[in-house]
């Protein structure tokens, strides 16, 4: 903080820095939203087990803020399609016929 007598532009500089920082945050957030939206659109169109499983390695490459959001979409979609997570094979599998029948 400069001496008060010389601080003629201090507040203006501070304001400009704050505005730039907020601008950068808004821009960054918009980019994240856009990536998440692209994934949402893609996942919405999945219909097969292969498509769902093919997304898994791609999801691992996403940033920490994007990945959990996309994962949530994917889990919901897989569930809606009747696929179940197999921790042993670390991928989705088709629901066993008897289990599917029990649910139906």
């Amino acid at each position, binding site marked *: 903080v400069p001496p008060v007598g010389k601080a003629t532009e201090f507040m203006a500089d501070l304001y400009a820095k704050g505005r730039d920082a907020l601008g950068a945050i808004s821009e960054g957030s918009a*980019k994240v*939203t856009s990536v998440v939206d692209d994934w949402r659109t893609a996942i919405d169109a999945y219909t097969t087990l292969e498509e769902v499983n093919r997304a898994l390695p791609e999801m691992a490459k996403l940033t*920490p*803020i994007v990945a959990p959001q996309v994962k*949530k979409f994917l889990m919901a979609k897989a569930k809606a399609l009747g696929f179940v997570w197999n921790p042993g094979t670390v991928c989705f599998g088709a629901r066993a016929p008897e289990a599917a029948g029990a649910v139906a």
Partner: protein
Amino acid sequence: MRISTTTLESFRLFMQPDQDWMTEADLIASIKGEFVPTPAVLLGSAFGKVLETPDHYRTAHGYRCGDYTFANDVMAPALKLMDYERGMFEVKAARAYGDCDVVAVADQIVGGHLFEHKTTGSTFNFEKYADSCQWRFYVDIFQPLLVTYHVFELDDHGNGVAEIKASTRSTCSRIPGCIRTAAICSASSATTCARRGWTGSSASGSDRRRRWRRNTRSRRASKRAG
């Protein structure tokens, strides 16, 4: 071992020198998931559910969740703060800290902005949220651009008809360098605490910390010897 940020925050609060409202039994119950919710917690939980899916709890004159009702004019300002179009609720992620997996569930993420919705029966206290290890873990695990706490001061007057007395918005952001260290220390301490169990319910705060340090020293010594 997996542990939630909520449990870690309970542990941090328990270790505060001046805390006298949480007993060791409460902490152990929290770690074991046997926590018995108070009416204030139930009210906060009902409010959170309505915030997340208001349509699900819609009634003719407002919202109802469990034993609690929220009038239209009570909920309107809170619902306005939510972004239902782009936002995603209850987003879960985990990260390993040493041999402990810390699990974090964000109340809402909108793009790169993470939101936590908190309720309190008393007045807003900035330090309570700023000191919390929860947002520090969120910053490290999700790496959001910002973390914002929406804190709602609720009162149901004991009759289940809730009102929001005030709401406050408080934002935290990443502090390079110091977050991960703090998170690792916190996770490691709490995990060890959970593993070893915690005994002696009458111990004071300073006794607890003294015993904690003694146990840690002895554990390290046995590790070196073994």
